[in-house]
């Protein structure tokens, strides 16, 4: 079964890459462009991605949420779901391609992550784990796509993109709040208190504050689209730190089970 897992992983990675490179090529060389083709290739890659997760689950006997490799698989899975659902309605090629690029960077990092199979430890056997993680990835996914659309906005400066960034960031913020709430409730059961000032908790609070602030700036102070896009791209750093940075560079987190 491990052979199938590896096979489907590389197939999906290859197809994501192909869709992305082909997409940029036809876009920048102004050849006849078919959004549908790029979208369908990505959809095919997504199916292989899904199969990778299925086989991984069968091998490890639990939903893949332990260690960096499994978290990348799942995180990238949620990210691509957001991309596919969002751009099915909004057929915007450049934001789609930039979002897909960010997904490839994330998904590709699975190659370097420790893929050792671990069981679901007693501490993690909780209903709240799934709630917490699903909202985390929906939130991080929305913030990542928002950053991808922001890059496209800085290149094209089209008004609808500005609104899309806002919608995605607002959705991400709501998911982020739900993630923090679910995590706090779980933490009470696991560590005995809602909040422990753990580095991951602190950084997720920083990203919540930052995105909340940016959205308030947009609504109340009506900041320009360019500033808004730059701020959204910059804020993605806090999301990256709360997921990778804290565990890799600080190593003192109670969320250390993220590390492969």
């Amino acid at each position, binding site marked *: 079964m491990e052979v199938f897992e590896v096979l489907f992983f590389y197939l999906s990675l290859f197809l994501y890459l192909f869709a992305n490179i082909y997409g940029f090529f036809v876009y920048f060389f102004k050849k006849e462009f078919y959004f549908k083709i790029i979208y369908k290739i990505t959809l095919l890659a997504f199916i292989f991605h899904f199969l990778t997760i299925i086989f991984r689950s069968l091998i490890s006997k639990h939903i893949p949420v332990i260690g960096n490799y499994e978290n990348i698989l799942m995180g990238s899975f949620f990210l691509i779901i957001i991309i596919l659902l969002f751009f099915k309605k909004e057929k915007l090629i450049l934001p789609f391609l930039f979002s897909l690029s960010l997904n490839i960077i994330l998904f590709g990092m699975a190659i370097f992550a420790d893929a050792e199979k*671990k*069981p*679901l*430890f*007693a*501490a*993690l*056997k*909780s209903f709240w784990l799934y709630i917490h993680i699903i909202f985390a990835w929906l939130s991080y996914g929305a913030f990542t796509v928002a950053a991808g659309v922001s890059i496209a906005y800085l290149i094209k400066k089209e008004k609808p993109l500005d609104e899309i960034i806002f919608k995605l960031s*607002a*959705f991400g913020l*709501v998911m982020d*709040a*739900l993630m923090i*709430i679910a995590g*706090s*409730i*779980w933490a*009470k*059961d*696991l560590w*005995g*208190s*809602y*909040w*422990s*000032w*753990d*580095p991951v908790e*602190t*950084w997720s*609070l*920083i990203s919540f*504050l*930052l995105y*909340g*602030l940016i959205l*308030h*700036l947009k609504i*109340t*102070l009506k900041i320009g689209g360019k500033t808004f896009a730059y701020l959204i791209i910059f804020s993605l750093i806090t999301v990256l730190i709360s997921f990778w940075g*804290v565990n890799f*560079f*600080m190593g*003192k987190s109670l969320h250390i089970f993220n590390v492969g």
Partner: protein
Amino acid sequence: MINKIFNFISSIKLSIFLTVSCALYYIFLSIWSLKSPSFVIQNISKMLPFKLIYSFLLLNTFFCIIKRTPEILKNTSKNLIYLPDNYDWVKEVKDKKLEEGFKIKRRFSSLGTIFFHLSFFFLALGFYLSSQSHTKGKFLVGEGEEIFLKDEEINKISEGKPLFNEFPEFSVKLEKIIYKFWEDKLLFRDLEAKGKINGKKFSIKINKVYPLNFYNFIRITSFGYAPSYILLIENYPKPLEEGVVKIFLFPPGTRSFFKTNHFPHKIYLSLYPDFYEEKGIYKTKSMELKNPKILLQVYRNKVFLMEKLINLGELVKVEEFSIAFLNLFPIIEVEIVQDKGVLIIFFSFLLALIGLFLRFSGKRGEILVKKEGDFYKIYGKNIEEF
């Protein structure tokens, strides 16, 4: 003057300044945590500057809510159609639409903003109560053991504030400790304790607390093996002492000590549950009690007397007494936590969720009215929702 102060406190610029300050403070906190133990960070987070920023932010949010509430409440009116411009022709269209019986969909959505921001106050209140009332006490209980805790005993084990006065006295009977390790690693696949509290069945897991009432709950904080022993002296037919020592011989190799009732000796023990030796170093293959050996070290006052690696049941002579460890029992450390902020924090979460649900659920109806010559043209795919 009062207006100026009100405008300043309720200004978005102050919100920005305070939120950025909070974010910077947290960043500082997480960088500081690189070189400091976690309690230092917890102490820093309770320092005055943090409380000041936090209080200002709450004050600012409160005044922002006051400032915006009239406008928000106006938006919930069922006779309101929001249109971006305020020209006469817009008013005409608006009136016409109202005459035709159009209704606003999700008119209460803006209340979500108020609910969400109000939840911050309950959260702050919950945290305040939590910081004032949070206290805990730990006790050890072994498999098959029954213990009774009365008020004074609960107060004795409590760390910090003796807030267990209101705590009901209770009895714990631990019938079974279920534990499973993952391979040979120090990781639990399962850790659950089952038994009775005040005659009522209970189960606590490593990640699942057991509530005693609204603000008191118990949880498992540690697991270990506790040894039972007998102590013999010459020319005395019965054991002078026997029983279970409530110490954790866990994780493997950890050194713990106890004193006997009759002698001043300090008896240090280290357990290797699945013993093997590698280059003269004692190790364990797994966490299970497959081949348990105990490293025994005895001191009298500060004088080292002896060291020996022993099997269970092996009698060892130490000066005027002999000691043997007969068995090993699973034992857990249980923590009683008292936190009066718990329910309020939970309520604040609920309020925040209701707020977010109100604000973001469902589709928003949007229309665009454009004057083209003498006619009004109405755009918008959601127009049917009005």
